[in-house]
Structure formats: structure tokens, C-alpha cells
């Protein structure tokens, strides 16, 4: 694909201690630098239904062309309630954010007479955590999900410094293969570019909540496709579903090549 | 203009290529006129070699100009010239307008512009142009564009030179 693919890709993981271009023998002071971030690949995805929400992520953890792990999960339960968080980007920052959120959710519970934090409160808190690091950002994209007071599925997605929409979203994808998955979700979840057959292309197909079985199918389709075409996605698929009956985790296989 | 100095207030940045084709140009100082007159000479030469009634059609002229510009692009010193080619095809009785940039990307368009005018005028033209526009409506549209440029450009705008290409040839027009 295109000439850019002729240039060799870097094999280095991005985080490094390096002496930059100091090969001159003039005796000038060497300048050292430290890059505190790396991209560990992977992709996450979330879709809401009427009374449930699904978060999924692959379990491959990469650095450059190396695979560090085939079993590293990136969808987390935030304590013993119906809140789940998926994080992708720089693995260390991702885990740190998940840990911070878990502690906050647990603290809230013990400080408020065992009342669980609501999903919108957790969403606002996650913004505070991420924006608190505005000038040394956590290099991670988050998708937070849970059931609200009325038992409806809620989903929030964030950039690395905390931007999110309070209304929440019907679906979200982030990470290495988000550019592959998002247009598919546009089409299959929000029915973009679909029209009612009888209307001769004048009436858009109305958006409706999908049943859980359909959502799970879409998630698996999205990830098998992303695995096929993106080298940083694969190995395993972790799908966590939240319903009124509780939180369920399903692990399935993805291609390991 | 050279730098911030105005050298001439009424510089005609167009060349007549043949009786029904006109080319407007902008770009690097030197390159523009050199390239435009090279094209003009060659299109006129074509007219002389053949019957003077058998001139290159606007689409043929645009195709020729594009090719020359494309050759120049991969030469040691490419011409930095952006062009608009307008013409009236006397065989099909159709008006043509071609947009070409210095990379020799070419597109037939209903209306177009180069430089800052793109940002100020294209949206006006998007809204008010229609395929069956009359000359009077066209003049009105150009006046709107002109007013916008005077209003929004932070320079002492010296005005427009307007030429019309019709079946009976090219004429200058007061806005």
C-alpha cells in the first residue's frame, strides 16, 4: 500500500533512554532524552443495548513488532458492582487509570454506607482523574460503561485528557484498529447509510436498540475482522456484559498469527 | 506586488490562447507570465498550422496545458503556476471551465478560484451558483465575491479584471 510502506518501520518500542545525535566529536555536551510513553496496541469496543451494555477488548499486548503477552486483559470490573472500564494505549498508564478508578469506586462504597457509585458519577470522576494529569497525560483511551439508576445501559468514551460526553454514547471503539471498526459500527449499530427499502432512498432506517445476541455477534465480527487486518490485534477476545442479573465475562479465541 | 510593495495596480493576469479560450494565472512572479506565454504561443501555433477556423477546443487546450505542467512538475525547476482555463466550445455550444494547480491536478468545474479567493468566494458560489446561470446573474455573483474580498482581505484590494467568453469571442466587462 503506498510508498510509505517502502520505508522500514521502526522495531523499537517507543519508550527509551537515548543519547540523541551525539556522535559528533566536537566535545559539545550530549543531550539525553527520555520518552516515557509507548504504544502497546490492542483495541477496545463498547455497545449499549436497552437494559445491558457490552465492553470488549482483545488480549494481545505488543511493543513494536514484538508480542509481550497474548493474555493481557484490558477490560476491568471496578469493584463489586455494575461498573466496567476498558482502557487501551500505553499499558502502564492504562492499568494505573483502571487501578485509580477501582480504588475510587471502592472508597466511595465504604464512605457512603455501602451505596454503589452511579455510572454517571464514575464518568465524571474518570474525567477528573484524566484531566488532573492534563500536563503529563495518561496515554490511554478509556471506555466506561455500566447500568444507570433506571437499569439502562450507559457508555462513555474518553480521550487521553478526559474529554467525554455526559449524554453517553450508543457505541464506541478505541485503540489500534478503531479506524477499521468505527465505520462498521456506524453501519451496523446506528444503521448509517441504510434506508427503508420501500422509501426509495428517502427515509433513513430508524435507529433501535439491538438484542444482546446481535450485539455479541457484532462484537465478535468486528474483532475477527480487525484481527485479520491489523497486526496489533488478536490472540484472545474478552467480552464483559453487564445486565440487571450481574456482570458476565466471556473469553473467546482470536487468531494468534 | 513584490513583498509589501504594490508595483502595478492593473496587471492583466490573463492570456488569450485562441479566439474562444482564455487562461488566468497566479503563482510565482516570473514563472506565471513565462509559462502562460509559452502556452499561448503553442496554442496559437496550432491554430496557424491548421485551418484558423479549426481551433483547439477548450477541453483540448486544458489537456495540453495540464500535460505541459505535469512535465514541468518532474523537471529540474518546475513552474509554480496555478491556472483557470475558460473557454466556449463552438462545436457543442458549451461553456467550459478548468481548474489546474501547479501540481497539474486538473478538474472541470462549474466555478472555481485560486489562492485566498478560494476561502472567501467558493462558499458564496456554492450557495448562489446554478447550472443555468445567465450572464447578468454571473456578474451579480462576481460582484458579491468582489465585495467579500474587499471586506475581508486585510490588504488594499485593487479590484478585479473581468473578461467574458462567448460564442462571438472574448470581451472585457465592467462589473
Amino acid at each position: 500500500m503506498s510508498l510509505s510502506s517502502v520505508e522500514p518501520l521502526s522495531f523499537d518500542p517507543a519508550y527509551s533512554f537515548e543519547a540523541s545525535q551525539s556522535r559528533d566529536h566536537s566535545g559539545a555536551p550530549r543531550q539525553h532524552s527520555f520518552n516515557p510513553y509507548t504504544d502497546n496496541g490492542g483495541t477496545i469496543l463498547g455497545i449499549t443495548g436497552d437494559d445491558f451494555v457490552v465492553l470488549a477488548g482483545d488480549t494481545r499486548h505488543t511493543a513494536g513488532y514484538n508480542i509481550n503477552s497474548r493474555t493481557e486483559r484490558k477490560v476491568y470490573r471496578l469493584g463489586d458492582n455494575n461498573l466496567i472500564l476498558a482502557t487501551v494505549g500505553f499499558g502502564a498508564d492504562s492499568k494505573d487509570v483502571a487501578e485509580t478508578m477501582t480504588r475510587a469506586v471502592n472508597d466511595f462504597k465504604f464512605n457512603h454506607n455501602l451505596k454503589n457509585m452511579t455510572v454517571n458519577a464514575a464518568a465524571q470522576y474518570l474525567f477528573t482523574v484524566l484531566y488532573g494529569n492534563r500536563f503529563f497525560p495518561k496515554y490511554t483511551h478509556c471506555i466506561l460503561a455500566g447500568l444507570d439508576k433506571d437499569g439502562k445501559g450507559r457508555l462513555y468514551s474518553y480521550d487521553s485528557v478526559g474529554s467525554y460526553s455526559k449524554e453517553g454514547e450508543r457505541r464506541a471503539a478505541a485503540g489500534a484498529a478503531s479506524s477499521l471498526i468505527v465505520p462498521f459500527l456506524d453501519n451496523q449499530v446506528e444503521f448509517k447509510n441504510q434506508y427503508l427499502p420501500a422509501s426509495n432512498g428517502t427515509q433513513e432506517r430508524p435507529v433501535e436498540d439491538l438484542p444482546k445476541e446481535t450485539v455479541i455477534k457484532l462484537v465478535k465480527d468486528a474483532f475477527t475482522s480487525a484481527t485479520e487486518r491489523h497486526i496489533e490485534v488478536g490472540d484472545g477476545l474478552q467480552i464483559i456484559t453487564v445486565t440487571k442479573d450481574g456482570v458476565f465475562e466471556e473469553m473467546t479465541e482470536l487468531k494468534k498469527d | 506586488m513584490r513583498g509589501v510593495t504594490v508595483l502595478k495596480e492593473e496587471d492583466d493576469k490573463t492570456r488569450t490562447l485562441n479566439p474562444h479560450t482564455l487562461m488566468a494565472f497566479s503563482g510565482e512572479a516570473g514563472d506565471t507570465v513565462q509559462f502562460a506565454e509559452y502556452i499561448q504561443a503553442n496554442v496559437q501555433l496550432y491554430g496557424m498550422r491548421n485551418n484558423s477556423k479549426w481551433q483547439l477546443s477548450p477541453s483540448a487546450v486544458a489537456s495540453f496545458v495540464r500535460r505541459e505542467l505535469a512535465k514541468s512538475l518532474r523537471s529540474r525547476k518546475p513552474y509554480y503556476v496555478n491556472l483557470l482555463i475558460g473557454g466556449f466550445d463552438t462545436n457543442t455550444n458549451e461553456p467550459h471551465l478548468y481548474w489546474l494547480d501547479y501540481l497539474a491536478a486538473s478538474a472541470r468545474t462549474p466555478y472555481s478560484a485560486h489562492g485566498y479567493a478560494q476561502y472567501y468566494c467558493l462558499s458564496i458560489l456554492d450557495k448562489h451558483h446554478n447550472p443555468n446561470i445567465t450572464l447578468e446573474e454571473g456578474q451579480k455573483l462576481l460582484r458579491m465575491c468582489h465585495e467579500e474580498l474587499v471586506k475581508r482581505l486585510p490588504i488594499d484590494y485593487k479590484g478585479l479584471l473581468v473578461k467574458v467568453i462567448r460564442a462571438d469571442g472574448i470581451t472585457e466587462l465592467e462589473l
Partner: protein
Amino acid sequence: MSNPFSINGGAVVAMVGKDCVAIACDLRLGMQALTVSNDFPKIFNYGDVYLGLTGLATDVTTVSEMFRYKVNMYRLREERDIEPETMANLVSSSLYEKRFGPYFVSPVIAGINPHSQKPFVCGFDSIGCIDFAKDFIVSGTASDQLFGTCESLWEPDMEPEDLFETISQAMLNSVDRDALSGWGAHVYVITKDKVVKRLLKGRQD
């Protein structure tokens, strides 16, 4: 944004079906973020072969004209139309000729072989390396998005009507997520005795 492949924008996709192929392109021509034209098709026809070209607009035109010349010369010499497989090798060698100063295009070929009736698609990089695919080929600034939609929507042995719907949905939903592509699309559905060309409206932003 000085990458020549993403100055003008554009997307092309080709797909194989049951005894049919389809190829589609968007219609945008831009200069960086500014749209200059919304009627700049990127698919060119050479007898039985359809060639899609994305990349630098000037090279899209130059290369399409070069192959018009070469295919016409082939037709005069051989007294027959060029076959898709032959065209693939012609495109490959012509691009490799410019190995160290390439045309900045990513071509896609689609067609049905007039003798074997076999559907054929393939793609190239800018220096002529052929990508023979059994399923689909994508190219252009929306190629990531197209990989995602095509890999999810495509299935083997689709009839022409299904192939049209699939390639159209893959195209429209992909270009809607790419700022440099879109503004409508052309879709060709090619069967052994008929070619149907359709204009898709799509979002005008």
C-alpha cells in the same frame, strides 16, 4: 500533510462476487482540507478492464492517460482487447519503470476475463508490486476504514445485486469516516455480458 498520497484524497475499492466483480470510487478532489471538485471520478475503463487510481490527482490523470495510450497500442498490435491479467502485468511493469521516481498512485484493477469468464481483482503499491486477492482490494486515504468494512461485510459468492449493496455500504460508511474522501461515489458492477454503472449520492460533507 506533505505526503503526496494524501494531498488530494480519495478512495477506491474492488470486490469479487459469484461470476461478477464490482469496483467503486469516491468523487472528491481536494487540496488538503479544501474541496475543489465533487466530480472527479477515479475509475477508468479500458475495454474489459476497469482501473481505479487513488493518490496524487495529477498522477491519477497522467497514469490513466498513459494506460489509455498503452492499451490502445496493445489493441492495434494484437487486434484484440487486453485481458485483466495482462493489464495487471502491464501496470506492474509500467510503475516499476519509475522505481526511483514513482507515480504517487495506488492502482486497483477489476474485470472479468473474456475467455475463462473468471472474475479478477488486484491491487498495486506505487512501484508496481501486485497484490492478487481472492476477495477484495482497497486503496486511498480511506483504506484503513475500507479494510474494516470490507473484512466485516464481504462474503464469498455474492450475486451482483448483493455485491452492489455490499461494496456500496463498504464505500459509503468508510468515506464518511475519512475527511479527505467522499462527496458521492461511482459503482461499477461487472458481469460477463453486462456492466452496470451507478452514481451514489452519499453525504455532501
